């Protein structure tokens, strides 16, 4: 067991846990922040996506011991970011979600895309969102919502 000082959504959080514990489970079980989801545990689906030092990161893949003092932003706080808010609003206005379980990860990936590429092409969208699984199949509406968000952000 080891104790870590983490920077989660701008707050200092301390956890004592096995160093091998993925950040995903530190968030969900130690910090009770269940917005970040477990879908596969092997980074194939993207449901666990958070931002670490501004980079979209699959939290199921990264042991907490490797996080250090890098800032971690989760779905619970992304709405406080101007891009995050526009993306969430676009998701709602376009009725994107169905079961919704993958959407935390989808939104975090979309925000990463739009922060870097404010005017993404279809190819940009496919490449950046291409590793997030939606089992319900909401992909067409995700595309529309990202484009709408991009327009909103112009």
């Amino acid at each position: 067991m080891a104790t870590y000082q983490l920077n989660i959504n701008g707050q200092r959080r301390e956890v004592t846990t096995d160093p091998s514990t993925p950040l995903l489970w530190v968030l969900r079980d130690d910090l009770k922040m269940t917005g970040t989801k477990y879908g596969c545990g092997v980074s194939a689906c993207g449901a666990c996506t958070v931002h670490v030092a501004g980079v979209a990161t699959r939290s199921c893949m990264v042991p907490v011991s490797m996080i250090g003092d890098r800032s971690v932003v989760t779905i619970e706080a992304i709405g406080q970011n101007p891009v995050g808010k526009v993306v969430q609003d676009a998701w709602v206005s376009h009725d994107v979600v169905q079961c919704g379980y993958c959407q935390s990860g989808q939104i975090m990936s979309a925000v990463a895309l739009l922060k870097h590429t404010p005017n993404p092409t279809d190819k940009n969208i496919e490449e950046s969102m291409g590793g997030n699984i939606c089992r319900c199949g909401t992909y067409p509406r995700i595309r529309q919502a990202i484009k709408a968000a991009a327009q909103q952000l112009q």
Partner: protein
Amino acid sequence: MSAAITAANEPLLSRRTFLRVSATAAGGLLVSLYLDLPVAAQEASQAPPKPQIYPPDAFVNIRVDGKVVIQVNRLEFGQGVHTALPMLLADELDADWSQVIAELAPAADVYKDPLFGLQLVGGSGSIAHSFQQYRELGAKTRAMLVAAAAEQWQVAPHQCRTEASVVHGPSGQLARYAELAEMAARQPAPAAAQLKEPSQFRLVGKEVRRLDSRPKCDGSLKFGLDLDLPGMKIAVVAHPPVFGARVKSFEDKAARSVEGMREVFEIPLAQGTGVAIVADTFWPAKQARDRLKIDWDVSAVEGADSATLWAQYKELARTPGNVAVARGDAQALAAIASGNRVVAEYQFPYLAHSPMEPLNTTVRFDGDRAEVWAGSQFQTVDQAAIAEVLGLQPAQVTFHTEMAGGGFGRRATPDAHVQREAAAIAKRLRGTPVKLMWTREDDVQGGYYRPMHVHRIEIGIGPDGMPSAWRHVIVGQSILGGTPFAAIGVKNGVDATAVEGVADTHYNIPNLHVSVHHPTPNVPVLWWRSVGHTHTAFVMETLIDELAARAKMDPIAYRRQLLDPKATKLRAALDLMEEKSAAWRSQLSAHHAVGIACHESFETGVACAVDVSIENKRPRIHRATVAVDCGLAVNPLTVESQFQAGVAFGVSQLMAKGAITLKDGRVEQRNFDAYTPPYMIDAPVAVDVHIVPSTEPPSGCGEPPVPVIAPAVVNALAKLTGTRYRSLPLVAM
């Protein structure tokens, strides 16, 4: 009763009365009107009725703060019932939609599906079966509110009108539903409901956005897997590597050394036995399970093997099975020259559902009662199974329905195997809530797949190019066999879910013979979104397409000619699809092809045209135009979403790594890297959905999108490659 007749401009209730409503009724009108059960208020009494604690069979609660809380009798797992069923009730009720809160009802008899007699989501029946029910609930509640206001104002009910949770009297009086709630509760429940004409709908038939969107976008909505209770422990189970095997012995020294691990013990499973690990949180539970050394006894169970099964199935398919349909002249096929025959063999692998939220159930057992939280498609079945394991009556098990991250049929299990595991663990940990979690590996390897199938078809083509004789043998496990549903679904050795889509085809084939073999390999099977139609529609629509090509006819025109005139929904969908896709079908880019398919399932007719090219040796679906006749579309936005996304789900069958295979009893795939569902690049880029205008009662939309996409794509590929793919998934192209 306190309110007196008031003048137009005075509030209906005095402040004192309003407070009394708050204090006594603690929330107002409770309605439990399903099947016209008498409301407690009807039991005549001079004294005001005692305040009701919400009985579990409440459907509508009009709160004093104006919120209208509606219970949804089905699991919400993406299909949109959480919004659509309340729309039906709220429209008839004339409730203020902005004040509506939808809740998932717990397990209770009163929430059972009126047709199936159990509480479930399945068969795409949520709207279809509860359409009348929820409308009546809304209409009757409205009638009681109006009666209460009319009584206050000493006017006739028909002189009042309602809008947005307000009753308006003939002389400008008005009363909010929240204020009327207590009085309305004392009104007699009307014997009959006065339902709206479709032209009067304010919500139904309109594009209404989902009620659950925002919390699903900001991480606040809790799914079953997110549940946290004081003192809760996490459990995972080591399942046998071969279905039904048993634990011979296990060594847990390394497992016990994991900090946070609490208990390890053997538990019975629905088939065989396993080892349960209980820990404080998930990661130690998983670590401990990884360190368990288990010696399995596989001697008493068959080790199913895909290669062996394919050979067996193909052999069986060459012999007639149990007859599902024998229509016309059995000798007709033999009379047709071999040059006018088509013989085809099809293969379909096992498919896992793999909803995004892995299976989970939380149980707390307290000796004489239990409490359960689960995203279940089968609440009353699961409740009964848990009760059985715990030695309780179902009524002693409080079963909360949680929002679920997908299901596609996986959360509707007749044997309630996941719930039984959870109950067995909770029993051991009496008093402590325990959340059983399945990992993704558990899910991919855990069975309950869409069965593998082989079809063998011999068609005799008539002089008009239409199929005149059709002999069809299907080989595949029976899903209903061995379950309580066998009594209704398996007749004369034919499981109806294996032959649906063929036996009941709307194509006018005069001489049709359909039979089925149901082998019983040791692999648990289950319905997978659209069930038999997943494979039967693929066979029908690719063969029909092939026949159309042989006859040198347009594939749409061919289908139109062959379809029975009485297949009105399918014809309407076909016509609408043709119309809406005509422009782009005539302007295809180079190296693109169109694929057509149409199929009716769960009483909904669907037709589809796709624009496909080949990129990096895979089909790229640029566009799909889908037309649907589902009767009245209660929420066209939901219908559009279901079809846009449902066709993406249907692409699962085409994915190169979209098959579950077994070798010597062991499932070869472990996770999404080896069993791969569609990603964005695999799904259609754009899907335009068109709904046939209709006032017929609504039919389902959850499953009907799925069957058409795979055959449509493969029909397009036939044009691009010259090859008719008859074996799924599409591995090599």
